[in-house]
């Protein structure tokens, strides 16, 4: 049944995020072409203002996609679970676990895809900037290879790999906690009598505060350690801290999952 739920959830939710990411990619190409304009060599104030406007548009498009996708997923989850559509969702012959996973997987997937989309967009923008401006007279690939060599020489390959792994861990944990924060807060909000949306918003800020508090509490020992040992190697402190925070985020996500499942199974109350 989970497979069927996923099939229909994906079919119902792919359009809006795809359009948002697609538009961002188009805008990033458009913004990248601004580097082809002779703005650095000309005195044309109007052209410079136009370019700044395009870059601002690009900046807001990135914000729009990251916020828009999350907002869309939260609204879609709320609508399909707790409004009129919930009357069908909750009368399907499936378990509450299957129902939750059918929402978690596409939401997490879209969080990842939106992040990849933003990353590609920034890469397009950056590469087009390098390509058109050619700093130090180098082409795109020469610049990338030069920067990579510089980075490896400065930080050491071992540090870069560990840093990459710790970023991957915190990225995965972030996707889990981000998704479960949305699901958890919307679901907890359903316990609040007639003001369920307000309850969901309150729950979101409450959960967010707990997350912030816990992650800060995790950071403090590492920060003290860094200050006490007066180490120059920031990586040696940052990386274990990221790993610990990743574990904490995953634990919080699991707690939110079980709270949400319990509410759906034991406290469901569709108006």
């Amino acid at each position, binding site marked *: 049944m989970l497979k069927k739920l996923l099939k229909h959830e994906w079919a119902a939710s792919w359009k809006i995020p795809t359009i948002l990411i697609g538009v961002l990619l188009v805008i990033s190409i458009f913004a990248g072409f601004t580097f082809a304009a002779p703005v650095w060599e000309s005195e044309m104030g109007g052209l410079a203002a136009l370019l700044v406007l395009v870059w601002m548009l690009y900046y807001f498009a990135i914000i729009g996609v990251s916020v828009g996708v999350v907002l869309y997923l939260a609204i879609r989850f709320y609508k399909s679970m707790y409004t009129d559509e919930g009357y069908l969702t909750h*009368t399907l012959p499936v*378990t509450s676990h299957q129902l939750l996973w059918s929402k978690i997987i596409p939401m997490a997937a879209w969080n990842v895809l939106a992040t990849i989309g933003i990353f590609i967009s920034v890469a397009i923008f950056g590469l087009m900037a390098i390509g058109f401006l050619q700093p130090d007279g180098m082409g795109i690939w020469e610049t990338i290879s030069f920067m990579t060599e510089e980075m490896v020489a400065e930080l050491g390959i071992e540090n870069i790999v560990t840093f990459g792994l710790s970023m991957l861990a915190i990225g995965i944990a972030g996707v889990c906690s981000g998704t479960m924060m949305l699901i958890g807060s919307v679901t907890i909000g359903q316990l609040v009598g007639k003001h369920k949306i307000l309850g969901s918003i309150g729950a979101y800020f409450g959960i967010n505060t707990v997350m912030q508090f816990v992650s800060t509490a995790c950071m403090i020992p590492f920060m003290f350690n860094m200050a006490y040992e007066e180490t120059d190697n920031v990586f040696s402190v940052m990386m274990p801290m990221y790993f610990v925070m990743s574990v904490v985020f995953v634990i919080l996500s699991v707690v939110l999952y079980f709270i949400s499942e319990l509410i759906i199974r034991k406290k469901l*109350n569709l108006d």
Partner: protein
Amino acid sequence: MSELVNVSNLTMVYDKRKTALNELSLTIPRGKIVGLLGPNGSGKTTLIKILNGLLCPTSGTALINGSKPGPETKARVSYLPERTYLQTGMKVKELIAYFTDFYADFKPERAKEMLTSLGIDENDRIKTLSKGTREKVQLILVMSRDADLFILDEPIAGVDPAARDYIIKTIITNYNENATVLLSTHLISDIENILDEVIFIKNGNLVLQATVEDIREQKGKSVDAYFREVFAC
């Protein structure tokens, strides 16, 4: 086990102060069309929601085929809520595919036949249909299952008399004789002729459960007239 539904001491209290069901106990047999009747706010919809697993009761139990509402019962219960639950962006044919995927007892051919007889195009999106047509699509989907229990909450409220006749005809012609139809309404005169039994509830309490024949014979009145007498303001 002759009872299909067994409700025992069912209580539902909203916000710790409003009692919608008060220690309600009743049984519903198999193979009957049962009218769940009562004035507005009597607890009909609350009972229906509990049977469908959309609401968790404060105390007591509701069993269908001996099981609490869950995936097992939902596979055998076909529910028509009082509101439209269809995703407006979906096409009618996508909804047929959706029901086919999830309900093993759903008969797509039966649904398509009914859609054709009503002149509803399968390629239409729900959002392009009128409110009445959406309700008909929903009824068609619900009645195209070979369920054990059909729970229809106010199926004829808010539709024109012609549509009302169609809905009643659909209910009679599409339900399996071994199945039970639990039908909530306050438009009693329109459905009285198809009912086998009635359940009267008021303020969350069972007032009466009897066969339509008994009411007519013993009270010398139609169900509609008796309902007006029992619930006179």
